[in-house]
């Protein structure tokens, strides 16, 4: 818990530092009789809002991680859930020039899962893929049956995960990205575990990264 608290403190410090600094600069200007013009004020407020949203997102993720809701299990159609998760990300995908391919095996069957939580887990994996490819690229989301499990895979053609990082990427507050809190994969792992499933990195070293979410299939 101490490590968790230290991680939260560290991740919140940068957005809060920027918010406080922006407010102090505004106050400084006002005290000096030099209020900002409209454009400048809009930019400053935009920067404050962006950092406040970032801090808020960190806290949302932390709540999900620290107090996961028990899943409401029901039979879930993988193809439909994948499409719903991607629909929420359409604008992000377009803005990042990331094309998506969906490949669901015809015999995949149903998963026993909490649909909203599964959507959130898939969306997180796709978001990670988007962020791994700042210049755009491809994401392949697939589903197939393996024994009594359904494996949902999200693969990208970004640089992949370095061997040295592979062992730690599921830990809280470990991130290989700038400005990232390092909670996303941790949350996916929490969701997977609460379903009696698992998440793994298919192969380290790259190029490309593939994460496989394995969940119980229905009977």
């Amino acid at each position, binding site marked *: 818990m101490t490590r968790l608290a230290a991680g939260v403190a560290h991740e919140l410090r*940068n957005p809060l*530092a920027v918010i*406080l600094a922006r407010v102090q600069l505004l106050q400084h200007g006002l005290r000096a009789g030099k209020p900002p013009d409209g454009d400048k004020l809009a930019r400053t407020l935009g920067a404050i809002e962006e950092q406040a949203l970032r801090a808020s997102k960190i806290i949302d993720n932390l709540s999900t991680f620290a107090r996961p809701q028990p899943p409401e299990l029901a039979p879930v159609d993988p193809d439909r859930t994948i499409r719903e998760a991607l629909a929420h990300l359409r604008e992000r995908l377009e803005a990042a020039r990331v094309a998506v391919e969906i490949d669901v095996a015809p015999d995949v069957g149903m998963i026993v899962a909490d649909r909203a939580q599964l959507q959130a887990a898939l969306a997180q994996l796709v978001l990670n893929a988007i962020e791994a490819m700042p210049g755009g690229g491809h994401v392949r989301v697939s589903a197939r049956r393996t024994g009594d499990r359904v494996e949902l895979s999200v693969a990208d053609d970004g640089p992949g995960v370095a061997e040295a990082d592979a062992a730690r990427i599921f830990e809280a507050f470990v991130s290989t990205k*700038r400005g990232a809190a390092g909670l996303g994969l941790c949350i996916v792992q929490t969701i997977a575990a609460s379903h009696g499933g698992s998440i793994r990195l298919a192969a380290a070293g790259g190029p490309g990264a593939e994460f496989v979410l394995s969940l119980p299939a229905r009977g």
Partner: protein
Amino acid sequence: MTAGRILIVDDEAPVLDVLSEYFAGQGYAVQTAASGAAALAAVGRERPDLVLLDVRMPDMDGVEVLRRLRAVNGDLAIIMVTANEDLGLARETLKLGAFDYVAKPFDFRYLDRAVAAGLINVGSATATAPAPSVNQAWTALALAVFRAARTMPPGGRTSTGARLEATVLDTALKAAHAALPGH
């Protein structure tokens, strides 16, 4: 003539933006670098007087950048920027040649004094023309007060001592800064 050349190093663009805006507004010539490697290149290219250097960066951390800068440039004033939980590490960087450290969130009044004292330190170390003795005394006093305050435990700075430190230091820095060549 600017008040001095500052290089700000942080991997977070919003932090670079707000610090750049502040110091540019204070009359400094400001350059930025978003990584340790970029910082090393920028120091060679831009010849800053002072570097504000973030400790935690993903590719090369600030401590390593500090080591490498110190190996090639003994005069450069380097102020480490850190989070509160890294203060132990920040104190260690003083032994490696950092001039000071500041914590996030920023206290601009302290940051102002640290930067001004850092530049005075550079100026007093590199000035070729002898300054008038009264100004040498101001410079020495400013640096002595700054260094003494820096070694105080954080709690010691919240009492009357903090106001005294601020008053003496502001006066001494103003006088000493005015005495630097070019001012």
